[in-house]
């Protein structure tokens, strides 16, 4: 049972909410939040320490507070949040190295929870339909957040080897989505016209922000060492998601994706790495059987419910609201059949 918890990446939405959730647990006496910038949101009873996990100061924080559980949520998905790809990579990779180095030296640390991502499986035509935790990626990610995540997991494995007494839980999340969290996916579906890779229709999976946080809380409170895919039930197709969002799509040849992605990035509409374009082209599925059977966790929202919560929460203006489509359908049916067919 953890007493003193350190949460990294606390100034961003998910980290901040996680810190607040943990302070609400009476069994945890102290929650220390760490980030380079002060949190904009209320992190409840958590203490904030302005520290850069990229330098050895973090070691002092861990030792001074006698931290026994470290929740690492400091891996950033988009360069804009970090202020450029270079500093994003610094925060993600060097930050993790420093954090783990500090943990290795701190005898008080007994548990490490890492928020990782299913993007480490890459995306491509040679992928099996569903990745289980034991499978190796067929197309190793070569850029962006996915590559950072692969490297972070590599360092976490190294740490687990050197400190076998520490319980390490790695959670590989499907794409976070929800009414409030900002992710590359939510800004993508917020585009007025959604560019899609022509001739492809990716399978997508989402995890609701509340479910994702609950999974991290569960890993922090209980003893669940290991690696777990975390995703909402079911998959939806990119085209289907766009229709649910009521957005028109614009299929573009995959070869033009780099150009279009750069343009969208330049305009500040959404943040796109080549890795994400690959993901939106080939899609990916992760198998969450181990999450249910070993980790013992059942998300409250399915993939499509999660997506709908984004649409409702963001009030994405649907070009064709479903009610209107339904009304039109009923009208047509009654017009054509004299109103005698009822559904």
């Amino acid at each position, binding site marked *: 049972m953890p007493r003193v918890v350190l949460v990294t990446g606390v100034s961003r939405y998910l980290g901040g909410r996680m810190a607040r959730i943990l302070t609400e647990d009476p069994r945890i006496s102290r929650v220390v939040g760490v980030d380079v910038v002060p949190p904009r949101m209320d992190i409840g009873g958590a203490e904030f320490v302005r520290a850069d996990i990229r330098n050895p100061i973090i070691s002092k924080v861990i030792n001074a507070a006698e931290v026994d559980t470290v929740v690492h949520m400091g891996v950033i998905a988009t360069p804009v949040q970090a202020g450029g790809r270079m500093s994003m990579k610094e925060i993600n990779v060097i930050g993790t190295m420093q954090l783990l180095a500090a943990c290795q030296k701190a005898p008080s640390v007994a548990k490490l929870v890492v928020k990782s991502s299913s993007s480490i499986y890459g995306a491509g035509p040679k992928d099996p339909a569903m990745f289980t935790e034991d499978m190796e990626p067929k197309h190793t990610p070569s850029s962006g957040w996915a590559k950072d995540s692969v490297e972070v997991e590599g360092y976490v494995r190294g740490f687990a080897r050197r400190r076998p007494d520490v319980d390490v839980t790695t959670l590989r999340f499907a794409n976070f989505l929800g009414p409030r969290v900002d992710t590359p996916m939510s800004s993508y579906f917020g585009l007025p016209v959604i560019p899609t890779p022509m001739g492809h229709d990716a399978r997508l999976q989402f995890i609701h922000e509340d479910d994702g946080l609950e999974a991290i809380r569960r890993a922090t409170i209980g003893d669940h060492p290991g690696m777990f895919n975390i995703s909402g039930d079911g998959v939806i197709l990119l085209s289907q998601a766009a229709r649910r969002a009521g957005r028109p799509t614009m299929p573009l040849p995959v070869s033009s994706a780099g150009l279009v992605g750069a343009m969208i990035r330049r305009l500040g509409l959404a943040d796109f790495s080549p890795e994400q374009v690959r993901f939106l082209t080939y899609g990916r*599925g992760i198998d969450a059987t181990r999450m249910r059977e070993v980790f013992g966790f059942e998300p409250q929202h399915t993939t499509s419910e999660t997506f709908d919560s984004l649409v409702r929460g963001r009030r994405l203006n649907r070009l064709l609201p479903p009610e209107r489509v*339904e009304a039109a359908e009923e009208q047509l049916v009654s017009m054509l059949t004299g109103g*005698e067919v009822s559904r």
Partner: protein
Amino acid sequence: MTDARVIPIKTKDSKSNARKKPAAKKSPAKDVPGKRASGSRRSASSSAAAAPAEEPEERPAHDPLPGTEPAPVAWDRKVANALAFVRRRITGEYEIDEFGYDRELADKVLNAPLRPIYSRWFRVETRGLENIPDDGGALVVANHSGTIALDSLMTSLALLDHHPARRQLRMLGAHLVFSTPVIGDFARKSGSTLACAPDAERLLNKGELVGVWPEGFKGVGKPYSERYKLQRFGRGGFVSAALRTKSPIIPCAIVGAEETYPIIANAKTLARIMGLPYFPITPTFPLLGPLGLVPLPSKWIIEFGEPIYTDGYPDDAADDPMLVFNLTDQVRETIQQTLYKLLVQRRSVFL
């Protein structure tokens, strides 16, 4: 979606409805005899029955005159169904499975153009459908031929439309299929997935009927002179998958597909430039341009052989390469012999 005016169509004869919109209900094996009868009748006597196939079936249930009543019912119900389908498509309110299989779309849209090709153009005759179990996982292993994989589509249609349990064949395809735009997309939506051990085992464990063509591109891209000579059967991965999941293997021989696009030469350089495994030159393609894409109307026979059961083997049988090789050979030999048998029985290529 029930309709007061449709109820009189007897529920016992629900096959006529089930056939019209099969996506709506995954009907159990209730309608066994009728479906097969109607299927074989269609192929046997394609008489001047311009009327839809369900009419003779509902006549005994109703009064002898199938007058004005049922026709408009069928019509307005069709319209309502079509509109409901369009609405679900517009709003995205439909389900796909984890492999990307979109049952409704596959059945209502993707399979529709294949049905006339199946019954009119190739006049496919099926044999041994009783060897396919009504439920549970099984692995259909077939020979591959015909330049483009029409044989897989026809086999899938044979099982979906003519097997009593309307079994959907989940086909395993090469990764090249899934890296090709449009084709890969349609393949996933129609229930295919990548030919790899995890996917095959996942499907078999879920009790799906899985179709595999182990010859791969070696089979479809072979020259006409080597027709009906089976190529190497991959590395026997399909046997391992069947052994691990203890699913029966059903050998399947397809005759007719070889003659659809006879390959007389292979433009290797062109294939390499375009990133294709082969570039076929047939008597009509590329000579006649797009017209060369029309397949020759060969007469097809698809025969499903007796299942080879794998549940008698020990649990670690899949790790015994010798056993896997032997089983692979057994399956291959069975298909080869069946092919020879069917070729002898066949009267001519086109009749």
